[in-house]
């Protein structure tokens, strides 16, 4: 791959956790990955494969034990507004209204009040939240909360979106409509997206490239390019060919995960 156009570079990254007195857990090892500008990449794998750990390392929440992550040539050392983070739990500030949540990052950047208002209005309109400016997150459904969370990171014009199973807690229909909305936003705003999921269909529906990860230690098992044109039809034969291929890869890891769980529960 041409490194000139690579946006996120991950080199020899490992992440080792030492729980209090317990034996260490190698969450990630030997990760090398280049993500192009404007690419939509899904990290796919069973629980415990380190996909969220890798995403958190790119976000800068937890520096890797070894190796290096660079974004646009800059080594990642801390979280920053150039990498917008969307969490499965939404992480909206419950004490702020929808409007204040979306404005939060802009206020930090000391943007003028009028500019903030215009930008927030436009974003809430884009995400079909026009009538919800003054609502508190507790009054919104899961799908609407996640729309607000997406608006909140889009407000900062971050070129990169890091999404940690953002639609994992939503019902199937809401999930579909938000996936399509995300694809529209991605195409329109030319974002680079790293998207963690354990749903095979979701990864085939969304990604340019799916990175399948192994269960402990987390490594890259296989990269699968999804060459289907968009809009993708989940009923099509090609779509199914991809899901079948990925399912086989993921289920091998899921099986290892399951065996490990049985072993550790038996040992207790």
């Amino acid at each position, binding site marked *: 791959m041409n490194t000139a156009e690579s946006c996120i570079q991950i080199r020899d990254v490992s992440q080792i956790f030492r729980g209090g007195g317990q034996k260490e857990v190698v969450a990630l090892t030997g990760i090398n990955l280049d993500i192009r500008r404007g690419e939509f990449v899904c990290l796919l794998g069973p629980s415990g494969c380190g996909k969220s750990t890798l995403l958190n390392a790119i976000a800068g*929440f937890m520096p890797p034990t070894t190796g290096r992550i660079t974004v646009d040539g800059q080594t990642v050392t801390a979280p920053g507004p150039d990498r917008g983070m969307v969490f499965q739990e939404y992480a909206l500030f419950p*004490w702020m209204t929808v409007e204040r949540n979306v404005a939060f990052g802009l206020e*930090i950047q000391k943007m003028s009040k009028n500019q903030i208002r215009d930008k927030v209005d436009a974003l809430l309109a884009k995400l079909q939240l026009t009538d919800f400016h003054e609502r*508190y997150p507790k009054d919104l459904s899961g799908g609407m909360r996640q729309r607000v969370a997406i608006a909140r990171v889009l407000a900062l014009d971050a070129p990169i979106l890091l999404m940690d199973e953002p639609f994992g807690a939503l019902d199937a229909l809401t999930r579909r409509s938000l996936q399509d909305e995300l694809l529209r936003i991605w195409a329109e705003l030319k974002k680079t997206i790293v998207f963690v999921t354990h749903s095979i269909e979701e990864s085939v529906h969304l990604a340019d490239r799916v990175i399948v990860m192994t269960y402990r230690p987390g490594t890259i098992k296989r990269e699968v390019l999804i060459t289907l044109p968009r809009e993708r039809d989940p009923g099509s034969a090609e779509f199914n060919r991809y899901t079948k291929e990925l399912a086989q890869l993921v289920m091998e890891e899921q099986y290892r995960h399951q065996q490990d769980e049985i072993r550790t529960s038996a040992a207790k």
Partner: protein
Amino acid sequence: MRWSKLYRLLQGALVPCLVLGLWQWLGASGLVNPLILPSPLAVAKKWFEYLSPLEPFDPTKSGYLAWLVSGELLRDASASLHRVVSGFLIGAGLALPLGLFMGASDNVYKLFNPLIQVLRPIPPIAFIPLAILWFGLGNPPAVFLITIGAFFPVLMNTIAGVRHVDAIYIRAAESLGANRRTLFLRVMLPASSPYILAGARIGMGTAFIVVIVAEMIAVNSGLGYRILEAREFFWSDKIIAGMFTIGLLGLAIDSGMSRLNSWLLKWHRGIEHR
């Protein structure tokens, strides 16, 4: 619908009415010396006397409204309220920043925690001798004692509140570019406010207990002073009228705090159905 409301009203009034009836009967029967236990009617009469202005209305001396609130009860209640509020504001005002720092920083916590653990179990009442020695008589020792009473509940809850802030809010704020100051003021403080406000409500309750005791010792105004004064003269009806006033004021303060909490926490999930 109407009937069930009436029914609930009657249900709530039943036990108080029975107690009042029994009490009135005891007084009327002559079994108990009215100096020991005056009848409820005598107490009610005294309460209205206590509430009404001492002198007849004289337009040359003061306005009508000023005259109307010149009764002993209202002056006592406002003196007590004034002490509670000042002591509470000082105590909570000191406890809040200390609690925020102790909750946010492990080092600050380790520095202050041992001292606090030793001081916290000492009831504010036990500080009375020292308070009088340090501040003499009058408002200062009373306010000092109330400050101590309000300080610890607010402090303990603030520490717990900050420690319970969900790490995901901090992550979200950091990734949106928040610096430490913004994180502290706009994320940690509001996120811990349900705990802090619960602490404030407990602190206010303690402050109200302490003010009555402090007034019995250190000052010569206020509801606590008044019931002790009434004892000197064997005015048991006034003692009970004063106690009743203390109860009413306490209830008013607590429901005021509770309303303030619900308003400040209207975003909070736990109270949405109140």
